[in-house]
Structure formats: structure tokens, C-alpha cells
């Protein structure tokens, strides 16, 4: 292993000597491993051995960044970047980077995960559990994430963190229109339960057989955690100060206002144990818990030092390269079981997953997303039918204001484009949500 901490320090000192006012240098090491599977067998196994440097610097309020994959060229790349900055334009809104030094809470990655070189048994545990439930076909991915970061800034933030985790996503199918989906995520090998994900995906697939076309209308909906994860990711990403400034958020001008029902409390917490856990953000600010929505009221946007200055507040420790971003989202659980939620619904749906969320207007929050996998009709507290081909068409603020309760147990979910930020979320019941359907 190279002296990555030394390279980060060298980037900073060289850039400062060349005239940079603020410098952030990070070295990222990726040693991850993945098995993709389909039709109940592995289709490809992937392994990465990558080391790359990132340098962000500011020269007279000109903000520039670079990625360097050839670490032998670091000096040259730094010189080029300083020269590029001099040709660039001032950012009058630039508000600096955080002042260190900082002390970081360190948690050691599970050695059992670091030492894992063959995920075959874990993959087959999920596949076989789904097949035992009666599913005919499975597909998914197993991931061993192993990432390390060395950070050094010109404001004396110096940090090192290594994280390791396991995740598995599995979709089980009974036929072309009957499927179930679940994920397993853990930061310790002993807490990783691929067979539970497989079993649950298989159960839903079997329940979802012979679906009929759904009917447009307004329904109470019980959401599985996978769907809640996708919806809460919309809260997290729209709460970024960047999104607010760019016209990409319905939360603009809503600090201190009600944006959800009283039962909704959402936090972003990079300091907690999750797949998004970390010691510090991209500026070196220690990760912390930020309550974004408390009892339905918007408490804060997610900030880096620069956006915080613009909004006359403090950084929330959410710096990303350009935009502040959530690390890991948590919804405060309630006291319902899923069965109690279903029993409570007179005229509604049980939605197990959603995908392809898109906005008509980011400012108003009008959007739609598509329920996929098991979609179940609930009438008078009982599941009566299986549906297909419907679309959830509503408004983000309206949807969260219609939340009537959460499950008592939270599940950690992370899945592809749909749940990019790991989220620890329970079941959710929302009332009178819009459902539409395609015309023939």
C-alpha cells in the first residue's frame, strides 16, 4: 500500500505553495467485490482495485477540482489545476472550508467482511430461500463494499476512515408480472441476512401471482420499507442546499414550516452505524446527526461550509464535491405492525416497491413513481386482489403530509438508483394518495 496520507498532504502543500487559498485533497481506495446473479445463477463476478486522488482548491475565490488516477502525476496535476483556476471565474458566493483540526469517532470495519473473498454461499442463501418460498426465478446483486479515504485540507483537517459493508438485492419472480423484491444490508458479517431478503422477496412474488389491472383513484397506501426508502431519499436529496438554490426542491423557503404530518421525523446521520456511516464529510467536518424534519416541520437544509455561510447558519457536515448531500437517512419508527396498518385500511393498497421517480415540477413537488413487484388491493382491512400497471401520481409535500403512521421496526435499505442513500426506515401508512393508470 502506498503512503496515501502522505500524497494527500503533498497535494495540499504543493497547491498552497502555488498560491491556492483553500485546498482539500482526498485519496480514495476501492477494494470492493460484487457478484451479479440472474436465472438463479451468477452471471458475472466483479472486483475492483482502484486508487484515485481528488483535489479541490480555491484560488482567489475561483473554485476548481480534479481527479487524478495516475498518482505519479500528482504534482503535475496540481500545477495544472492551479493554472486552470487562474483562468476561471470568481465565485462570489464561495464561503470557505471548515477550520480544523477535528477529532473523529472511528469505528473499525468488521474483519470478517474485509477478509471475505467468495460471496457464493451468501448469494445462494438468498436464491435458495426465494426458491423455497415458491419463486421460479431470481436475479440480483451481492456487494462487499470496502472503501478507504485519506483526507487532508489546508485548514488542518486530517482524517482517515475505512468502511466495509455487505448488501444484497434480490428480485424473485413467479412469472413475467408476479415478483417480489427485498434487500439485506449490514456493516457486520454476523448481522447480514441474505436468506431473509430472499425469503421475503419469494413470499411477495408468490402472493403477487395473477395480478389484474389496477384502477385509478385515491387510496390509502401501506408502503414496505423499500418503497419508503425511495420516498425518503427524495426528502434527503431535496433538502440539500444545492437543490434549494438550483430550483430543484419543493423545500425552498419552507424552513420552520410544516412539510409533513406531525408523525414524521427524518434525520440524516452519517455518524450512526449504517452503510452510509462515516467519520467525516468531504471537507473533513465530523459526521453528525441532523434532524431534517421534526414532527413534520422542516428544520434545516443539508449544508457544507460554503452553503451554510450563504444561509447564515453552520455546516451540517454534509459536504460533497459540489453539492451537500445526505449520508444516511433515518425515519423515527412508530408503533404499528404492518398487519395492523393493513387492517386499518378500508380502501387502499399495499405497495412493496417503487421505481422511476420523476418530477413535473421540482418547485411544487408534483411527481410520479411506479409501484413495482407486489401491489396488493386492500378492502376493509383485508388483502383482496393483486394489481399491476398503476402509477403513483401525487405531490411530495402532499404525500408526506398524508402520513398517518409508521411501523415499529425499521429496516436498512439501499438499492440501485432508487435508494442511493442508505435509509433505515419502517413501514409507512399514507392516506388518500393518487393512483393513475395507462390507457390502452
Amino acid at each position, binding site marked *: 500500500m502506498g503512503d496515501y496520507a502522505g500524497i494527500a498532504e503533498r497535494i495540499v502543500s504543493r497547491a498552497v505553495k502555488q498560491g491556492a487559498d483553500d485546498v482539500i485533497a482526498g485519496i480514495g481506495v476501492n477494494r470492493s467485490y460484487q457478484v451479479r446473479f440472474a436465472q438463479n445463477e451468477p452471471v458475472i463476478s466483479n472486483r475492483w*482495485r*482502484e486508487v*484515485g486522488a481528488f483535489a479541490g482548491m480555491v484560488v482567489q475565490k475561483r473554485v476548481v*477540482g480534479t481527479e487524478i488516477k495516475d498518482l505519479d*502525476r500528482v504534482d503535475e496535476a496540481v500545477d495544472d489545476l492551479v493554472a486552470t483556476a487562474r483562468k476561471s471565474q470568481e465565485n462570489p458566493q464561495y464561503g470557505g472550508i471548515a477550520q480544523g483540526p477535528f477529532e473523529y469517532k472511528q469505528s473499525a470495519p468488521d474483519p470478517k467482511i474485509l477478509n471475505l*473473498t467468495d460471496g457464493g454461499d451468501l448469494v445462494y442463501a438468498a436464491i435458495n430461500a426465494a426458491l423455497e418460498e415458491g419463486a421460479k426465478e431470481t436475479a440480483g446483486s451481492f456487494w462487499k463494499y470496502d472503501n478507504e479515504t485519506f483526507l487532508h485540507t489546508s485548514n488542518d483537517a486530517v482524517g482517515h476512515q475505512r468502511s466495509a459493508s455487505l448488501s444484497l438485492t434480490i428480485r424473485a419472480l413467479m412469472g413475467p408480472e408476479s415478483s417480489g423484491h427485498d434487500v439485506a444490508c449490514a456493516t457486520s458479517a454476523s448481522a447480514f441476512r441474505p436468506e431473509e431478503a430472499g425469503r421475503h422477496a419469494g413470499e411477495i412474488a408468490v402472493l403477487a401471482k395473477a395480478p389484474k389491472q389496477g384502477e385509478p383513484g385515491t387510496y390509502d397506501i401501506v408502503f414496505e420499507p423499500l418503497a419508503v426508502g425511495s420516498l425518503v431519499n427524495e426528502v434527503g436529496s431535496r433538502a440539500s442546499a444545492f437543490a434549494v*438554490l438550483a*430550483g430543484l426542491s419543493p423545500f425552498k423557503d419552507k424552513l420552520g414550516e410544516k412539510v409533513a404530518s406531525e408523525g414524521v421525523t427524518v434525520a440524516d446521520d452519517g455518524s450512526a452505524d449504517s452503510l452510509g456511516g462515516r467519520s467525516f464529510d468531504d471537507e473533513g467536518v465530523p459526521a453528525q446527526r441532523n434532524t431534517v424534519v421534526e414532527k413534520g416541520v422542516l428544520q434545516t437544509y443539508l449544508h457544507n461550509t460554503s452553503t451554510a455561510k450563504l444561509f447564515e447558519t453552520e455546516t451540517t457536515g454534509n459536504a460533497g464535491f459540489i453539492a451537500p448531500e445526505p449520508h444516511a437517512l433515518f425515519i423515527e419508527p412508530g408503533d404499528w405492525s404492518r398487519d395492523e396498518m393493513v387492517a386499518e385500511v378500508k380502501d387502499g393498497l399495499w405497495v412493496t416497491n417503487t421505481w422511476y421517480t420523476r418530477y413535473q415540477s421540482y418547485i411544487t413537488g408534483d411527481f410520479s413513481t411506479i409501484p413495482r413487484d407486489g401491489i396488493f388491493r386492500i378492502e376493509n382491512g383485508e388483502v383482496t386482489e393483486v394489481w399491476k400497471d398503476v402509477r403513483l401520481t401525487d405531490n411530495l409535500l402532499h404525500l408526506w403530509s398524508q402520513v398517518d403512521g409508521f411501523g415499529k421496526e425499521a429496516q436498512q435499505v439501499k438499492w*440501485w438508483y432508487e435508494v442511493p442513500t442508505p435509509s433505515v426506515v419502517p413501514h409507512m401508512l399514507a392516506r388518500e394518495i393518487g393512483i393513475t393508470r395507462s*390507457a390502452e
Partner: protein
Amino acid sequence: MSELDLVEWVVEEARNRGASYAEARYENQRQEQFLLKNGILDVLFNGNDRGMGVRVLYDGALGFAAGNDVTKDGARTLVEDAIAIAKSGSRKQKIVFTEEPGVEAEWKVPEKKPLLDTPIEEKLEAVNHIDRELTDLGLNLAARIFSWSGTGIDKYFVNSDGAKIRSYSPRARMLYFLTVVHNGDVEQGSRQLGYGGGWEAFSAWDAMNRVLDEARSLQKSLEKGKKSPEGRMDLVAGPQVTGIASHESCGHPTEADRILGREASQAGKSFITPDSIGDRIGSDVVTVVDDPTVPNTIAYYEYDDEGVKARRRYLYKDGLINEFLQNRETASVLGTQSNGAARAVNYNVEAIVRMANTFVEPQDWRVEEMIEDVKDGIYMKSFSEWNIDDKRYNGKYVGREAYRIENGEIGAPVRNTVVELTTPAWWSAVDAVGKDFEFEAGFCGKSDPTQSLDAMLGGPTIRLRDVYLR
């Protein structure tokens, strides 16, 4: 050993270690990007991403390893990794690739004004100029975003079938996203422009007029836009709408890896099955193609990332499902040949079945002729929200710039017209295909790890008869 020699060595090394097939891809991607947000340059980025990916077929299982230690030791480690994980991912159903000729070739996209050698100051000024003209319109612009990116992809591909292909592909992209407010009401519009070639991209796009026209049309919608009527009527869809429908409702469902279930857990499957070739999907005026060989597109290539020669693919032809997008693995399963659709977004991910430039083939109608013949309908020039289910059957497009058509005349703007149709319903309703043509750039998302790939989508204006709109 040079990086290129290393690519050849690594393939040989993998074969020596027992791989029945091996390929290696070295990529050096030079990138420059900037983001102008509300008139302020947020950040200017330039970077150099380079490394090598090695894929092996070992006892019928695939292993892929990627890294950026481009030395002999680093390359040897990648071979060891790829073979070790292929062994651990063994299969009952052995993966087989189709036989394809091992081509030696070199291709390069021509640049009138080399993209990455053009000074960054010139690019910054060009985009700033648009922003100044935009603000001079005097509209209440609550937010305005411009992003520029220029990428030069230098690639060397070698496989154990004898292919040795060197290429250089410069790609320019610009995105704008505008938010206009009027009397407390808001409209948003965006577009992605793409070009394969040099800095001449900027004039080819006519970016200034596009942005100013978009801003004016947003204002017009706010001032004069009416609620879109509900019911069955005709829809005249502009090239941007035709393009997204081509991509979502034809390109994706004809990807053979989706049809075979390889993407089931992520991007999904398809309503199309291996037996669907020849089935009717639309009216006989509908022909949708995917073609990587269209010059000056960001998805242009001459050979794919498995070394197979690129060609035009007729996915839907005369209203019938005609051809799937194939790589060497899917083609082998389906008993055909690859049609050169294997692409990877970078060295560190496997090549999978992808679209390139997907569009409806133009025919002979003028837009005015299509509109003249509509008694009651909507002219949807562009869209805002869109999505489609993972089997690519239930699509939705919401109009951004749209107008009422009554008795053959274009009338007032209408807001947020929704067309929510099944794929066969969409293509079966088409009765006229225009002679106009326009492309838009897109990022196509697929695979795991996610690969957001350069694609273009487009076509002419088309007319759909008697569809339900709201």
C-alpha cells in the same frame, strides 16, 4: 512496457492461465466540466480518469477485474482476480460467446476545433454569454443552471479472438435547466445537448436560440397557458417526445439482456419475449432504429466494447418487432449474432447491451400538414416529467411546451398535458411520421454498478390519433 503493450500482454496472460476467452480495455478519459448556477461559476473541474478492465470467461463463468495500477504487476493481479472470481462464480449453464471476427482497426471522431484543446475561457464565455442574454429578457428567473462537459475517451480494446481496436471519441454535452416564476406560478424547462466532435458543437447546437426560446415559452405558458383538456383526441408529438418514446418504449424493451432476465433486479425485464420477433407493436408507419454510426452523435462508435462492428439496428420495422439489441453473450443464447450493442461507460465496468442513438425513422409529412388535419388535439413539442414501468409497457409523458389544436390551427398554450399510454397503444396510434428530425442527448441508466451512459434519442414529429389525454 507501454500501456498498450500491457493490454495485449494481459489478454495473453489470461489465456495462459486457462481462460477460454479474455479481453482487456484500457481507457484514458480526459474530462472538463463546469457548472454555472444563477450566473455564478460554482466549480470548474478537469480530471484524468484512466485504468484497465479485464474480463475472462473461465469454465463458462465470467470474471471482471478493474484497476488503475497500469503496470505489469498491476495487470497480473487483475488477471488473477478475474480468474479467481470467475471460478468462485461457477455456473451449471455455461456462458458462451458468439464467434465474431477478430478485427484490427483504429477509428477516431473528427474534430474541426479539438474539443479539449479549445481554451476553457472560450467555453466559459460562450455559456456566460447565453446567461447574460437570458437575464436580459427581463423574466423572473428563480433559478438558472448551465452545465458543460467535454470528455475525450482514448480507448484500446484487445481480445483473445484477435481483435485490437484503438479509438478516440471526443464528446461535448451541455445542459440547461430554467425556472421561471410569474404571479406566484412556476414553470421549469430543461434540455440536454450532445455532440460527438470538437468545440464546433456549440455552434451546431444553436444553443443561444434554444435557451432563449425555452425561456420565452416558459413565460408564455405562465401568462397564457390553459388547463389541458381531458378526453380522447389527437396528439402531435415533437421530436423530443418522439425521442424519449423511442428510447423508453422501443430501445429498452428490445435489449436482449433484459429479455433474458439479466437485468431483472435493477433496470427490469421486458414485455417482449424471445419469441416476439414479428409481432405487431404499432402501425405500419412506425420504424424505430438504433444506430451508433450516425456522425457527430455522442454515442457514435465504429466497433463496440466487445470488438464487434457497429451497424444500424431496425428494432421496430413497419410496425413489427424486428430485432433485439445484442452482445456476444445474449446473441449466443438466442441463436443469432451480436449486432454490436455492447458498451461500457468506463474501463472499470463490464460492457453490457446498450442503446446508442435511438430514433423513429423520418418519413414524408410536413409538421404543418399533420396539424392541418387535426380537428381536436394537442401539439406537445417537449416534455417535463416522464417515466415507464420496468417491463417498458406503461409510459407517461407530461407536456412542457404544448399547444391546443382546433380545426387544424395551433391555439393557446396548454399546461401539463398528460399522456399515459401502454407501449402498443402509443405506437399503434401513430398515423403520420414527419420529415423533420432532431436529436437530444440523454444519460441512459442501467446495470449494477450503475452505468449512466451517453445516448441520443430523437426523431421527427409524429401524429397519434384518438388517444386519451388529460
